């Protein structure tokens, strides 16, 4: 399912949100060119992202969350959007008295002020004339995220966690939210840090790290900006009562993020995996193949093509890796990992490596190959 459904409902001011929408000045932006990155910092892999803001560019909140490739709209709904609209209007009524608590909703100075200032995007104009041909002129949002990453890997420097795993989903901490509400917990993962911190199902997050929360995207924003090891103060509404809790971020928490759905991961697979699309085998599949549950078993689900030229091979193909192979060792790693973990391992811990040894299980036989990295 694409985001088209909710987008059309929003565009046409669908009946349930019509009265609320009329209280806003609605602006639709369809190009990345020229956007002010000191204000508009969001998850650039989204296909639907919204900002609620004051005319002075103070941000009341963000909306737009995605965690799956195929079902892009799984984590958003018109009901949730409606609640975010209501909450944004409340914040607008309270402005400027609430200015101080909203300050952290705007990010720090960006690496580049506009997208076209990134080396990879310099060929694009700072504005697009929509009455002419736009193909080749428009900077698409995902290109901004890609350009931010490229700055690091082209210099063979480790890609920072915040750039590689942007806008983490709160489920990495054990918190799952209902898309039909503003920020209401639908499930707590057993044994998670959130459970240990005392969160309960149906708690509604009102503030996180001092910021008013009006959507799941707002929670992601706070997590995006959080440190690698942190304790964030939280206010939740539980049975009509406000309760103060802490949300503990244990070292390395962000690395549990799944980035496989992201459009920008397409390029990361070419750069760090030689073009392999990998999938961690389930315990059942491992049992069938006589593989341990604790060690690496990454199934080569597919091999990407570099481009349309038939003779253009990716590094995985050049190394002789085939679809259906199972990776059981990658560089120094043999532990159980996801595809996202291995991408992180290459781009962070092996940023200077030109190639890495890969151990393959092919029909029960072990093979060693050398995978060149870009």
């Amino acid at each position, binding site marked *: 399912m694409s985001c088209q459904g909710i987008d059309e409902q929003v565009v046409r001011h669908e009946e349930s949100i019509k009265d609320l929408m009329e209280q806003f*000045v*609605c602006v639709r932006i369809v190009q990345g060119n020229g956007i002010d990155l000191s204000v508009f910092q969001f998850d650039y892999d989204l296909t639907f992202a919204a900002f609620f803001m004051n005319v002075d560019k103070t941000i009341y909140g963000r909306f737009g969350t995605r965690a799956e490739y195929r079902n892009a709209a799984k984590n958003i709904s018109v009901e949730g959007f409606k609640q975010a609209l209501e909450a944004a209007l409340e914040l607008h009524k309270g402005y400027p008295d609430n200015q101080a608590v909203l300050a952290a909703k705007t990010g720090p100075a960006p690496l580049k002020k506009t997208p076209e200032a990134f080396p990879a995007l310099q060929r694009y104009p700072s504005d697009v004339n929509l009455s002419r041909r736009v193909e080749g002129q428009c900077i698409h949002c995902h290109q901004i995220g890609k350009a931010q990453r490229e700055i690091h890997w082209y210099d063979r420097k480790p890609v920072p966690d915040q750039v590689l795993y942007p806008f983490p989903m709160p489920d990495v901490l054990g918190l799952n939210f209902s898309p039909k509400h503003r920020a209401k917990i639908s499930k707590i993962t057993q044994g998670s840090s959130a459970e240990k911190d005392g969160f309960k199902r149906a708690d509604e997050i009102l503030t996180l790290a001092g910021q008013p929360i009006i959507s799941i995207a707002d929670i992601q924003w706070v997590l995006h900006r959080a440190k690698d090891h942190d304790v964030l103060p939280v206010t939740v509404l539980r049975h009509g009562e406000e309760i103060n809790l802490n949300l503990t971020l244990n070292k390395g928490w962000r690395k549990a993020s799944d980035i496989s759905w992201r459009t920008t991961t397409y390029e990361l697979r070419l750069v760090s995996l030689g073009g392999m699309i990998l999938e961690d085998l389930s315990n059942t599949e491992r049992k069938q193949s006589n593989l341990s549950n604790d060690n690496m078993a990454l199934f080569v689900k597919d091999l990407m093509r570099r481009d349309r030229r038939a003779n253009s091979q990716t590094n995985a193909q050049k190394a002789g890796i085939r679809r259906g192979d199972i990776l059981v060792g990658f560089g120094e790693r043999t532990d159980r990992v996801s595809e996202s973990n291995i991408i992180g391992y290459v781009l962070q811990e092996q940023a200077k490596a030109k190639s890495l040894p890969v151990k393959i299980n092919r029909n029960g036989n072990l093979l060693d190959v050398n995978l060149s990295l870009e």
Partner: protein
Amino acid sequence: MKFIAPVFIFLILVCTALPCFGHGDEEVAEDQEMVKSTGLWIYNDLEKGITQAEETGKPMLVVFR
């Protein structure tokens, strides 16, 4: 047969690796027409939105698509 799956995945990835909002000239034109026809949106002009918000005192909703 064995080439169908990779080619299909390649095509899906290429298609979704297209834009923020989406797409080619035709899709942009269609989107522009559809959104403008509602009369409810300022299309691709943040400055105009800021001016209108200043005049009306309303908050802004800025959608990136």
